[in-house]
């Protein structure tokens, strides 16, 4: 057996072991010898992966993030991040990456380190009024929880009015523009 073939076999064994120990749903919870190397292998080769499509449970919230924007003169406006179901089908597909960021990352407490960036992004989307700058931006999760169908069965394509959505303000960022004009 040539050295090239031996190297390929070793690589196959390592790769399949990494899949079992780092990616499989039955992967060990505890540290094991070589874990750091395996993680480094996945990261450095770009082969990191996680297969959790609608599993172990599908998401049960119809959720979006809003920003309550407070101006220096006390005026409050609301900026809503893209709500895909309100867009035409093609646009909905094109905007999917925004939903991924908004719902899977931005709204989550563990990801508070990216809230400031998101707030800055929202500020850049707002019309600039030099005479009445933005004083603060509050981020609000708004959602409707899908009920157990055995208790309340909802028809496909159902909607609830915005007034029935639950809301929770999860962060407020000041722009440093507080004070009299």
């Amino acid at each position: 057996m040539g050295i090239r073939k031996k190297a390929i076999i070793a690589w196959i064994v390592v790769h399949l072991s990494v899949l079992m120990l780092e990616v499989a749903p039955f992967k060990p919870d505890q540290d094991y010898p070589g874990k750091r190397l395996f993680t480094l292998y996945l990261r450095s080769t770009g082969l990191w992966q996680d297969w959790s499509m609608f599993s172990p449970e599908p998401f049960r919230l119809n959720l979006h993030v809003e920003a309550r924007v407070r101006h220096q003169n006390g005026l409050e406006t609301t900026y809503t991040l893209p709500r895909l179901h309100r867009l035409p089908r093609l646009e909905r597909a094109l905007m999917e990456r925004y939903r991924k960021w908004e719902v899977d990352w931005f709204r989550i407490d563990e990801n508070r380190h990216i809230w400031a960036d998101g707030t800055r992004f929202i500020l850049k989307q707002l019309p600039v009024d030099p005479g009445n700058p933005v004083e603060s931006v509050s981020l609000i999760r708004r959602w409707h929880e899908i009920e157990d169908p055995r208790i309340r069965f909802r028809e496909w394509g159902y909607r609830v009015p915005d007034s029935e959505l639950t809301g929770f303000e999860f962060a407020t960022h000041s722009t440093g523009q507080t004070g009299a004009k």
Partner: protein
Amino acid sequence: MRIKNSIRMLDAFFFKPVPITGMVRMRILVGLMLLVQALTLLPGLDHFFGPDAFVSTHSLYGPGAPHLRLIDWLGGSGTAVRTVLGIHVGAALAFTVGFFTRTSGIIAYLTLISIHHQNLTILNSGDTALRFALFFLIWSPSGGAWSVDSKFKTAIPEHPPWALRMIQLQTAAIYLFTALSKLNGLSWRDGTAVYYATRLWDFERFGFDPVFNSLTAMKFITWSSVALELALGTLIWIPALRIPLILIGTAFHLGIEYSMNIPWFEWIMIVLLVGMWPENRTFFPSLSRRVKSVQS
């Protein structure tokens, strides 16, 4: 004796030369999917990457993270974003037509992971699948036929298929791991999971009425999805079941593509299923015979 036989079987599985048809087919399809994926980045390019992005790499990783991020290394400006994406599209195009196949594949891969590292928050499973498919194709002789490199030679050489086998094993692992993970979920076991998934407004596309409005039908779809995913992760290795499972799996992904807004993921999974097609079987036998008779 049994161990020796198993080793011999594994050796044949990874290293017995087979026609490179499967690798060539995958090169073209994965190349096309790379181009489609690049297109999906265009509508929000400045919001995804660069100085106006909704998340910065500094916030994502902190300072000095070791990830390959060509956009940051080129200054992180809008021009850097367009330069890296432009190089990526050029390399993907060259890879698809098999022009300097291995080099273009490596460039496409390095730019792909740079783009992915630049903003992890917009990635989905389709992006992940594309990464590993391209990665292993680089190691295969996928430019050996139907390519500029081979002067569009249609005679198919043989080569050890280990790189294609890795893509196939990864594909089976996706189905198996997903199915096992779903079996841990209560709603997949009680049959309500697909009901919840179809009630997510942002995922809606076209409904299957009255199927989507029947809890019995929803339960049937939930359980059969898990059963199919388990079969695609395990039974697909049984030669007699492989083609039927590929066809059922393709229909399953087309059904999801029709009814749910999960862009391009289903198409990438169909490409991966095409990669499972047995080397000794052609897609359209009569057409293949006719091509061969014309050539001879």
